[in-house]
């Protein structure tokens, strides 16, 4: 992700246009390639973060457009992995300071030089002077700038430029009140991938359909009072999947701090590239761990369940469905739709819809964090025959209990 100071855009007659890079530009590709090489080289030599950042910055700043260079550096550093700081170093450091303080207080005379002081300290702490000097060198090894790089999710220079363009759009939608995505006659596989990402991102969203056209409305972080940053990051994750669609129009009202709202429009013509084009796409860790626990059981989880009609034009995108692993065994297909801490109104609406239009295969899961501050809703969920509660994500135990009840 790019921070706000790294976003580049133009305002034109009430609209905002992200400044996207020409990914075919040879100079830009060279810069991107050099930066990727710098990070790869740093990994080989376990360079410290501070040194790497400085080298990257010098390189990036030498390019005519400083902001572009710095944006590329930021995206690369986000893909780098640095060693975890030594948690016990702070305590060891304090012990050294306390020993040094004792020497400073008690054993100095007017002629003591700095060098003498260190010699005395080495003696008092039963170290050689060499050991003390080594200790001094490593004293602040846990500072961010001193941490060593240990890994890097490498990408090609072209991918980095595509990633940069996508990050410019992601940065702007972080300031959107609401996103509207029009998807004309989508291919079913593309649509499912995008809708699944929508579910994984736990966003407050509504999906509707009008003949062949699909419409997705997603609330922006500005509409929430709680955990705006986390929600914003999840929204950005979802937006990164939208270019998987062959045709789309994304519109939003973007309100940057201390500026009037501006219209943003991004379409497939901008030639953005989704950041994860693998067949299954990104699967969050909590989903992956539940998937694993179901691997050898009698039930199987399907992460791309059929879309379900609710109301006149509304579509329900279930999070996943459960069905017997053995096709010969007759059993129900159970669709599960999950509602997280932001989904109060969506949950109430879904419960109302189920009351008026029964869907016996659809089961509703509600996060305890959502119910905590809504006692009426909690009562309603507890009394509902097709509802259950969970923490963060339903565990195998919760799902097995539910399946037992159903079968």
């Amino acid at each position, binding site marked *: 992700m790019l921070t706000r100071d790294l976003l580049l855009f133009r305002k034109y007659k009430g609209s905002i246009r992200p400044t996207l890079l020409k990914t075919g530009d040879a100079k830009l590709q060279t810069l991107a390639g050099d930066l990727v090489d710098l990070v790869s080289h740093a990994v080989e030599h376990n360079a410290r973060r501070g040194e790497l950042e400085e080298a990257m910055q010098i390189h990036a700043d030498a390019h005519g457009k*400083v902001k572009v260079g710095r944006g590329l550096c930021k995206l690369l550093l986000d893909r780098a992995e640095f060693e975890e700081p030594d948690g016990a170093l702070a305590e060891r450091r*304090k012990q050294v*300071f306390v020993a040094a303080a004792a020497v*400073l207080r008690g054993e100095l005379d007017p002629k003591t030089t*700095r060098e003498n002081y260190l010699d005395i300290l080495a003696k008092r702490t039963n170290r050689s002077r060499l050991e003390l000097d080594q200790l001094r060198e490593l004293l602040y090894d846990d*500072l961010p700038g001193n941490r060593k790089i240990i890994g890097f999710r490498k990408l090609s220079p072209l991918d980095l430029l595509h990633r940069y363009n996508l990050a410019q759009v992601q940065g702007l939608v972080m300031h959107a009140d609401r996103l509207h995505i029009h998807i004309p006659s989508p291919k079913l596989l593309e649509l499912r991938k995008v809708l699944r990402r929508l579910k994984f991102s736990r966003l407050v969203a509504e999906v509707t359909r009008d003949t062949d056209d699909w419409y997705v409305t997603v609330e922006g972080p500005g509409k929430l009072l709680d955990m705006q940053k986390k929600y914003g990051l999840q929204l950005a994750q979802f937006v990164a999947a939208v270019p998987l669609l062959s045709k789309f129009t994304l519109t939003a009202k973007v309100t940057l*701090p201390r500026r009037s709202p501006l219209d943003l429009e991004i379409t497939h013509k901008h030639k953005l590239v989704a950041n994860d084009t693998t067949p299954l796409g990104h699967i969050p860790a909590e989903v992956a761990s539940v998937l694993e626990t179901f691997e050898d059981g009698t039930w199987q989880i399907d992460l791309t369940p059929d879309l379900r009609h609710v109301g006149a034009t509304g579509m329900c995108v279930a999070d996943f469905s459960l069905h017997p692993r053995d096709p010969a065994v007759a059993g129900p297909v159970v669709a599960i739709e999950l509602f997280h801490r932001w989904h109060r109104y969506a949950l109430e609406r879904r419960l109302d819809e189920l009351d008026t239009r029964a869907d016996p295969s659809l089961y509703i899961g509600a996060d305890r964090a959502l119910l905590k501050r809504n006692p009426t809703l909690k009562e309603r969920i507890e009394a509902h025959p097709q509802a259950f509660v969970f923490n963060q994500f339903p565990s195998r135990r919760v799902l097995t209990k539910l399946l037992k009840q159903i079968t």
Partner: protein
Amino acid sequence: MAVHLKFDSGTLVATEKPAGHPHLDELLVWDERTRLYRAPAHRYREVVLYLKHHDIAFDDGARRFERVALPLQKTLKPFPHQAAALSAWVAAGCTGIVELPTGAGKTILAVMAIARIGRPTLVVVPTIDLMLQWQSVLETWFDQPIGLLGGGNKDRQLLTVTTYDSAAFQTEFHGNCFGLLVCDECHHLPAPAYQFIASGSLAPFRLGLTATLDRTDGGEQTAKSLLGPVRYRAAIDELEGKYLAPYDIRTVHVELTDDEQERYDYCRGRYIEFLRTSGVDLSKPDGWGQFIIRCHRSDEGREAFACYREQRRIALTSSGKLEALWQILRRHRSDRILVFTEDNETVYRLSTMLLLPAITHQTRGSERKALLAAFASGELPVLVTARVLNEGVDVPDANVGVILSGSGSVREHVQRLGRILRKRPDKRAVLYEVCTEVAAENRISERRRQHRAYQRVYS
């Protein structure tokens, strides 16, 4: 028809505006988007007083606070300067700024103001440490739960403490819930991101607290327009002795070695030459930004930038300064010493060199707490820091301050002095300013000493 007032995301909205009132025309501006009249929320008091004064019927749907009884839990006997500050503030309509040195009891002044006003109050502070410090003081004086907003806390109460960062994002939601707005260290308020905290709040009563309002960018005028003028001011030397520890200020001049001087002259020459040829004027508001941009456009510029950094590094951490610090450490072996530098790099260099504990913004909360506790107990008698201890955090036991390097800001200098002035029996504080004998640093030193608290220098 009565004028209906409403609070809308940090603004005051009015449905009607009676004709023939030019002052109201200035206050409430027609908003074509919503077809309503609108004003920044901080004009609420002025609008309401005007409507009342002219017997114009209005219906106040804007504010969401009422008068509440906020009695003090125990008797408070204020110092004369605190009583005088409160009187001046009340006499001026309970708005405005009070300038009191660090350690003079600004928090207690705010406690008295809160009890006096008897309205839900929002206290805005710069850091989470300070937020917790304020919470604990308010809990001592009021029989009320003290709410916190920020640092992971989302508990709004009648008396709430928040940080500038949190308030900047949340004022549009709670700007109509508090009758009194207290901005601690209110010299932060003029920052563009923070102004909305005061301009988006309806609070008719406002109190700004600071040790010195002066800003190098002239932002003090913004603070005055949002909180009110300075109503009371007491200088360090007026309170010295009885309410603040007596103090001395000593300037230590050190020289560069021959090698340092040669390198310094070369680097400074290249840097100044580049400034001259590129036509950048650093005295202009965007001068520094222009310099950075020009530096990155050519090899010559990049070299000039490297030279700028090098000459600065030499001036800030010359071997003479290190020797002077060493002498001070030896001289004050039984004292509690705070060492201030301009940047974190120097902090860590000193810490590694002399094995002195350091606190910067990168120090984790738990380590910082442990180091401050060890400093208070005397286990660690010296702390090296750049700016994080300039304000807010209470280090009452410090009695020696060493300014190895700093900016030209008078405010920063006064705050650093304030760190060592908290009154203790038999305490006499000493502030050392170690200054390299080069023109640039002498000028900075001279600039920051433009305050009456520094008119007593012994070299």
